[in-house]
């Protein structure tokens, strides 16, 4: 199992190289991969059909309970076969569609990567393994949507898709984490039995909401649907494969997969049905307002996704069966139609339905494929789409609640589908018009065979549903429902209510098609919907983000050093005060009155000398004077060191102070006079901060000194400095022996400073000044 995934990844990264070697024939090895994967997966069919589930586990990050766990049952096998089977055709098609494109190699890279990721999503048996592949599909989808990278709109669409699905991914991650906490495992097969535990958990609601956000963003449910039409900026094979047949259905897969764990509650039913219903309606409504082929297809896809979610939400056995059948039917016909749209675009250079007519003569095979697919889409009798629609209506009518609404929604979308099918299957190719749209060139076989194969599959499945698809779908439905399913798919159910409704749908579809121009003229009234729509909200959010972050950053990162330092000091003071109050530290001077008043006269004199010097230093304008005063203060410090038994420190301080003064005089004697800058208000503000800080430091010092210090180090050094360190000057022995590593570091600092000063003064890269 792993080898399939790894081979895919490897092949993906080889694709650019292969393209360099093989040129246009690169599509052959690239198509062979999904084909062999398809065959490999199909080899599991007997086992799965006999009711087994297959678990293959590879240790990946066992410390986090994330393993490469592959889990094959009916549901995952169904999806996996769809992904790889469709993938084979798309690989061939892409080779024809993008013939001669210099970046074809990279295109195959992304596409193969996506295919692997998608297969990974549906085959994962560990929810985080699933999540990993899930995010990979977002990433590869991003790269594919932005494939025409020179176009601004492509880049924007790619970003939008990534932002929306990425945000959904984050929500999903949180949701899955919570699910893991609630179900106490990340392993899918274990989780499937923990429905009681999960649905009764406190975290059920948040985790459900988060997972639904993840699934809805991926499957373009309202209000996250807007990225999908924009994603049509991708080359057509991508639209057909990712944004119609597979990736967008990852969300559906997730919902289906987790139905046994999360489903069955009221929240589940209603949220899915609401979101799905709105999406269905909205997609259908928007579809008839557009004239761009791919846009129309995109919106009908959204509508179809809505139906799928609704059906999953209903959750009854017929609804789930209908969901599966419709999903397959939709993948077959919608994929075909996208490819047809691609062919039309390729041959004529336009996708505007108004400009396209009479294409049937020039591109017969494509036209046939289009017609077959369109009939399936409209739900005409011998096609698989018909079975799908019948089941949908049955399920909607069989729902326990909101029967009428559900049916109306499905009916409406069915009607629109029929109308759209007429446009694609009939209008473009066969409607008689004086001047057919001129073709720029004829199509290569790689372009018309894949749609034809797909479309005829729809027909074959429709004619022989029982042997071909029923067993798999049964097992898939079982995986969702948990009980054995015995339904049979049949083309003909006799003259029932549903059949009548199907016919009515077709009729109404024709009406819509006939009066579509008139309907379109009304649609301008809905423009207000766009203005307030989520697409717009997204745009505003991005703009707002940029604007907001810019102004915030301007305020925070304002470039004034003194403001930065003030903020830091205030933070420090604030924290100190907070901690002091929280831990009830009290300064009690009375305890140590004796030592406090133990002051010698010369110490006081020194103190009294330093204070005015400090004040003077703050106010003085002359540089030399300030250096002198600074030196004086430093020397006074040294005197204190002498007084308190630290001759080495004092000597060092004296010498360093001298050195500093020398450096100062040498370096800074050319700086101009001070100007007093800054307003009085500023100065007062900084004065307050400084005084507060100084007071705080005094307070802290006194606080610490309140307690006696017991230093084991002092005793040890006093006893051993001579005996073990062979020196009488304890400080020196500490410096060169006990703590010589400090001194080594210290000397390094000095050395680096010297190099730095040297480089600073000598090396001048900036020749501007």
């Amino acid at each position, binding site marked *: 199992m792993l080898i399939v995934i790894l081979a895919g990844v490897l092949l993906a990264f080889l694709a650019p190289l292969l393209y360099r070697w093989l040129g246009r024939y690169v599509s052959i090895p690239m198509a062979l991969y999904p084909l062999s994967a398809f065959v490999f997966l199909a080899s599991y069919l007997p086992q799965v059909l006999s009711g087994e589930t297959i678990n293959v586990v590879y240790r990946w990050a066992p410390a986090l309970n994330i393993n490469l766990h592959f889990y094959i049952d009916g549901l995952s096998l169904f999806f996996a076969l769809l992904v790889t089977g469709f993938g084979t055709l798309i690989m061939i098609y892409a080779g024809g569609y993008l013939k001669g494109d210099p970046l074809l190699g990279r295109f195959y890279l992304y596409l193969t990567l996506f295919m692997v990721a998608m297969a990974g999503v549906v085959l994962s048996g560990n929810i985080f393994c699933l999540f990993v592949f899930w995010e990979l599909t977002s990433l590869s989808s991003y790269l594919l949507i932005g494939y025409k990278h020179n176009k601004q709109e492509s880049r924007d669409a790619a970003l939008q898709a990534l932002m929306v699905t990425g945000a959904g991914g984050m929500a999903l991650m949180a949701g899955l984490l919570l699910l893991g906490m609630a179900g106490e495992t990340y392993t899918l097969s274990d989780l499937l039995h923990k429905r009681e535990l999960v649905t009764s958990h406190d975290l059920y609601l948040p985790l459900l909401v988060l997972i639904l956000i993840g699934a809805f963003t991926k499957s373009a449910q309202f209000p996250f649907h807007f990225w999908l039409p924009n994603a049509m900026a991708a080359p057509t094979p991508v639209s057909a494969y990712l944004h119609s047949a597979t990736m967008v259905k990852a969300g559906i897969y997730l919902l289906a997969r987790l139905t046994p764990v999360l489903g069955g509650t009221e929240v589940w039913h209603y949220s899915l049905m609401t979101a799905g219903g709105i999406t269905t309606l909205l997609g259908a409504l928007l579809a008839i307002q557009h004239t761009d082929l791919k846009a129309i297809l995109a919106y009908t896809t959204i509508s179809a996704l809505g139906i799928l979610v609704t059906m999953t939400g209903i959750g009854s056995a017929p609804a789930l069966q209908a969901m599966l059948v419709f999903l397959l039917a939709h993948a077959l016909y919608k994929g075909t139609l996208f490819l047809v749209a691609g062919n039309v675009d390729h041959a004529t250079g336009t996708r505007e339905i108004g400009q396209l007519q009479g294409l049937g003569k020039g591109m017969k095979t494509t036209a046939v494929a289009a017609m077959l697919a369109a009939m399936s889409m409209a739900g005409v009798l011998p096609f698989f789409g018909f079975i799908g629609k019948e089941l949908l209506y049955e399920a909607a009518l069989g729902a326990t609640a909101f029967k009428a609404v559900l049916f109306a929604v499905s009916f409406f979308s069915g009607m629109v589908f029929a109308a759209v099918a007429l446009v694609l299957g009939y209008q473009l190719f066969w409607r008689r018009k004086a001047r057919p749209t001129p073709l720029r060139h004829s199509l290569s076989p790689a372009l018309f065979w894949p749609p034809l194969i797909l479309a005829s599959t729809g027909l074959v499945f429709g004619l022989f549903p029982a042997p071909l698809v029923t067993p798999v779908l049964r097992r898939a439905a079982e995986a969702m429902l948990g009980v054995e399913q015995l339904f049979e798919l049949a083309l003909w159910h006799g003259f029932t209510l549903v059949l009548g409704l199907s016919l009515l749908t077709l009729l109404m579809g024709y009406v819509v098609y006939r009066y579509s121009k008139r309907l379109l003229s009304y649609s301008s009234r809905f423009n207000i919907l766009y203005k307030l729509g989520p697409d717009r909200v997204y745009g505003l959010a991005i703009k707002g983000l940029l604007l907001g972050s810019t102004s915030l950053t301007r305020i925070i990162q304002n470039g004034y050093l003194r403001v930065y330092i003030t903020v830091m000091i205030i933070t420090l003071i604030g924290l100190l005060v907070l901690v002091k109050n929280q831990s009830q530290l009290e300064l009690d001077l009375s305890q140590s009155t004796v030592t406090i008043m133990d002051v010698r006269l010369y110490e006081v004199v020194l103190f009294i000398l330093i204070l005015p010097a400090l004040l003077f230093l703050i106010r003085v304008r002359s540089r030399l004077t300030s250096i002198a005063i600074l030196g004086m203060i430093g020397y006074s410090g040294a005197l204190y060191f002498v007084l308190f038994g630290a001759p080495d420190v004092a000597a060092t301080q004296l010498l360093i102070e001298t050195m500093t003064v020398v450096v100062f005089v040498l*370096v800074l004697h050319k700086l101009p006079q001070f100007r007093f800058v800054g307003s009085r208000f500023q100065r007062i503000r900084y004065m307050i901060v400084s005084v507060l800080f100084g007071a705080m430091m005094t307070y802290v010092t006194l606080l610490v000194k309140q307690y006696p210090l017991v230093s084991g180090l002092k005793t040890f050094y006093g006893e051993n400095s001579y005996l073990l360190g062979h020196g009488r000057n304890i400080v*020196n022995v500490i*410096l*060169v022996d006990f703590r*010589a590593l400090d001194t080594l570091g210290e000397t390094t600092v000095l050395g680096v400073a*010297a190099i730095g*000063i040297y480089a600073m003064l000598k090396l001048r890269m900036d020749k501007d000044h």
Partner: protein
Amino acid sequence: MKTLILAVAIRIFIPIFVFFSLYILIRGHNHPGGGFIGGLICAIGFIFHTMTHGPKETSNTFFTVRYYRLTPERGQGFLLHKLIILYKNLFRKEEVRTGSEWHKRQFRIDPIFIIASGLFLATTSGVFSLLANQPYMTGVWADYYLPIIGKPGTPILFDLGVYLLVLGVVLKITFIMAEE
């Protein structure tokens, strides 16, 4: 500043400063003092010199090694050649100075080299113990006492390294700044 008296006085002072600083260095283990203070004191002597004579002059006077070099003969080993040059330069000054086959050369000791040697000395003083599978910087001490220094050992070497480094650093800084 460039008065003659001061200039001459500085020339005399420098050896005094150097010796005094060395004294401070070696007594540091037992009395106030040590490598750091010693290095600084030594450097101060040179700072005065730099201030009166300029950095070029200081560098020429104190930090330039002049020697005579011989073109190597064929078949003579590299090491032997160097050793001959070293020997002649040290002990046969007159012969070298007059000999026609000897060429005058000079080598400026950049203070960076002093820094590097100081750092090297300080670092290496601790390495010996590593060889004996003792922790880094374990003191290795001699068995006898010397006057002023006391017991010689690797920490004294360490202090000497500090001394050299401080000297180098201060010299480097002063030279550059004085050049500015």
